């Protein structure tokens, strides 16, 4: 069920009651996880676990330290408090140290589901079984992963702040591969309420891509018009959203410094294309998240609106230095679309490539926010508005800045998982011109 509010309050009070430092902040997380993995159409591991984590930061003036543990017995908590207080007393002063966050009012989050919390471990097996059988019947090998996370989390501090929120989610992804290994397809979904989990279309989508991507041919790399499915868009957008940071820009070491002239501010500048809009909103039902970040309330925030940079993240210390408002980072990311179906997007492309999934994205050049990565699990040639066949995968070198500048059309947003994190994203597929496909990958 996750950490209940009563238990959270009792534990926070107990820990804060032990603290003798000038100020303190406690954070708690308790819950259960289920991880079901399968490969070659058989379950390879299925695990359930429960754990609690307790963290404590204390300060004596500007001297601070933090500690965390998963032991919550009286003796363990006393030891934790004594330890962190000793550490803080020994720590040199940090001129940038900040007092705990002031109490605030938080909206009730909507990313909780009793049904997800109460699902039995066997429920996951019964949901996954038909998808595995679907793959067996189609003659493909499938590998997949279902992750059910149920958490209660709390934050409290010596200024009187207390916030308790719960979250639940179920994510599922699978990769279907043809027996010869020459075709591969991937699909995913993520829901808050397990009753909304519909795995059959996900399985069908992955299998269809696997079969369609067999015997890919090589296509010359180069700057190309691409249709990016939502998962690929999600991976690329996430590379930019965390770099929208005020302090990095003020210190001259942000990609934004290269986009605006010396002495000019990027906020309010039209740095991207008209179709680029990025918003975060913890209460968006299509991809909800917690309504605070470290005790700072999260509200609907427009980061980029029709190409204009509207907001940068601002930490508490930097806000004080610059006399500007604090702005926490996003808890989710929403990008509106034009409503076109994927087929309608493809129909707008005379000569291009359909990219369904990306992989191993890593920053190459922070100055330009250049990232490299690869396509995988279904890449297709588009000619005269139609998918004409599979092509071999590509390595790309591209900046999300360019992508947001070169959007030609967008589709219907959907909630999809990314390749390396599970933060909620609700984004559309995009048509992007001049996407830099750098070389061909033999991987299939």
């Amino acid at each position, binding site marked *: 069920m996750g950490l209940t509010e009563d238990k959270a309050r009792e534990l926070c009070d107990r820990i804060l009651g032990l603290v003798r430092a000038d100020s303190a902040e406690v954070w708690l997380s308790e819950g259960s996880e289920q991880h079901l993995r399968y490969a070659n159409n058989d379950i390879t591991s299925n695990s359930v*676990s429960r754990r609690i984590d307790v963290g404590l930061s204390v300060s004596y003036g500007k001297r*601070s330290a933090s*500690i965390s543990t998963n032991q919550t017995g009286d003796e363990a908590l006393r030891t934790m408090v004594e330890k962190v207080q000793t550490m803080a007393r020994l720590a040199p002063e940090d001129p940038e140290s900040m007092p705990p966050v002031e109490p605030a009012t938080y909206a009730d989050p909507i990313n909780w589901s009793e049904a997800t919390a109460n699902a039995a471990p066997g429920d996951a097996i019964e949901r996954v*079984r038909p998808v595995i059988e679907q793959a067996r019947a189609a003659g493909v090998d499938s590998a997949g992963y279902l992750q059910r996370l149920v958490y209660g989390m709390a934050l409290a501090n010596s200024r009187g702040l207390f916030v308790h929120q719960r979250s639940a989610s179920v994510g599922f992804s699978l990769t279907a591969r043809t027996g010869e290994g020459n075709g591969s397809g991937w699909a995913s979904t993520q829901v808050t309420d397990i009753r909304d989990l519909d795995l059959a279309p996900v399985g069908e989508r992955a299998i269809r891509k696997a079969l369609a991507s067999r015997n890919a041919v090589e296509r010359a790399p180069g700057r190309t018009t691409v249709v990016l499915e939502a998962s690929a868009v999600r991976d690329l957008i996430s590379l930019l959203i965390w770099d929208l940071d005020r302090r990095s820009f003020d*210190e*001259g070491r942000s990609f934004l410094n290269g986009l605006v002239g010396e002495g000019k501010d990027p906020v309010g500048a039209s740095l991207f294309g008209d179709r680029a809009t990025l918003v975060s909103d913890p209460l968006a039902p299509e991809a909800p998240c917690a309504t605070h970040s470290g005790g700072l309330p999260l509200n609907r925030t427009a980061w980029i609106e029709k190409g204009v940079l509207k907001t940068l993240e601002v930490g508490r210390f930097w806000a004080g230095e610059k006399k500007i408002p604090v702005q926490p980072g996003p808890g989710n990311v929403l990008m509106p679309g034009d409503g076109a179906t994927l087929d309608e997007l493809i129909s707008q492309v005379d000569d291009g490539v359909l990219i369904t999934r990306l992989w*191993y994205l890593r920053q190459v050049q922070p100055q330009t926010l250049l990232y490299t990565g690869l396509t995988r699990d279904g890449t297709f040639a588009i000619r005269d508005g139609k998918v004409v066949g599979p092509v071999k995968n590509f390595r790309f070198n591209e900046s999300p800045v360019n992508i947001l500048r070169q959007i030609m059309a967008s589709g219907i947003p959907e909630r999809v998982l990314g390749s390396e994190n599970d933060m909620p994203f609700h984004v559309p597929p995009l048509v992007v011109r001049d996407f830099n496909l750098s070389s061909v990958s033999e991987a299939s």
Partner: protein
Amino acid sequence: MHRRDWLKRTSAAGVALLADRWQVTAAAAATIGERFPNLADAALARAKALGASFADFHIMQTDSESLFVREEMVQGVDADSSLGCSVRVLVDGAWGFAAGDDLSPEGVSRLAESAVAIGRAQAGWRKRPVEIETLPAHTGRWEQAIGIDPFTVTLEEKVERLLAINRAALAKGANYCNAHFSQVRERKWLANTFGSRIEQSRVRVFPSFGVTVVDEKKGEFASRSSLAPPRGAGFEHLRDWDFIAEAPLAVEQAREKMAAPSVRPGKLDLVIAPSNLWLTIHETVGHPTELDRALGYEANFAGTSFCTPDKLDSLQYGSELVTIRADRTADNGLSTIGYDDDGVATEGREFAIVDKGVFRNFQMALGQAALIGRESSNGCAYADSFDAFPIQRMPNISLQPGTDPSVTVTDLIAGVEDGIYIEGNGSWSIDQQRYNFQFTGQVFHRIREGRLDGMLRDVAYQGNSVDFWKACDGLGGAPTYELGGAFNCGKGQPQQVAPVSHGAVPARFRRVNILNTAAEAGKDIAAVGKNTCNCNEGRLGRWA
């Protein structure tokens, strides 16, 4: 949001670390086996009573501390400790696993029941039952040899050493600098129904720093990170690495890099230092030769591999110079341990992955060897926390020195007409079957006519794993061997993070594809050259 993300983002200390001369408590001094007697018997007996054909029981305690300083400020002093246990069972041909932090006989019995229940729920529709080999029983204790236990070193000493690094960088003109030190102790206790009872302890440390120089007028900046690797070692690693000399050198090199000519893309010869090559070994040899990947177990996340079992003993993976060996026994190795998390003894199980250029073996965990006609696991199982299912993870995987011990990096550079000498690891990426890779670095020295000739910028090398290793035509001798590595190799779903070391000597590679990263970002490279070079009058740009 994932729990770990939430914790990270709600931490007031951000990056953080700790350290004080803690009094070692009685509980910490005792072995895990002594602190929790009879738990294994309770868990394993319950699992067997419920029908498990095999079961193991793990207790894991992880203690970590870290310290982060920025310029002259100490911004993170943090400690973390976790303790818990798991029961893994094989029942009716299927795995079941349950974990928790209730270290009582009743608690572990309940875990055994949960593990059996979810294993049994797969009965009746599996395609193929899981089968495992019988392993020898081991009883014993293994402890990693280190110099100075970092958990006994005072906070003051650690802070002063890190601040001294930053002072050295600032004195040389760095605009920004940071330094950090991480230390981890893992204690593991394993019991299984083969009869093993094993207790182990190991320590690892990671000292590092980064510097940044800024040209505000041009809106440009450049950074250079330390070349110091993490090690399976004690505090002596931070003490003995000459950071006070490296920090000002890093500032000079960052400044020189920012002003250097932009590289001309094309085929060039490379000499690669161990501080860069360890990561290339990791990605192009380490991951492709994981047997679980090759068999499709990781297809949904990390991917599969070009290196399939049918290529054993036949694939020419590299030139005849190339021998790459795996072990979990190397001194200071991050993967070094006495027994893996399946209970396989690691001593005597060192093996060649590539021998004189030919692919010879995979890395394996329990239940995998028979699938390629081998008798038993070679000891590569690892779980990163008490609630993680053990999976195959990398041992230390290292490029062996050339046969001539007198060969130095200078000798390798002398054999290059036009090329680049690369130090330090930067960006890295490789496809899901490990063919196509792309790496950058920290420092790129131009080589002309057998000598270093200034620096280059915007360099990345890209290629195919096998083609790359076949292009190796020179290796440093044994005295040039260095151990690199990482704390954070990711694999699996949910993702597990493993520490691993890779030894290497400097090596020379012919005709490697070089990219210009500024051009890849869509910049006018001619303009980049013009902006950064004042020695090229009359030309739009400067390609090196």
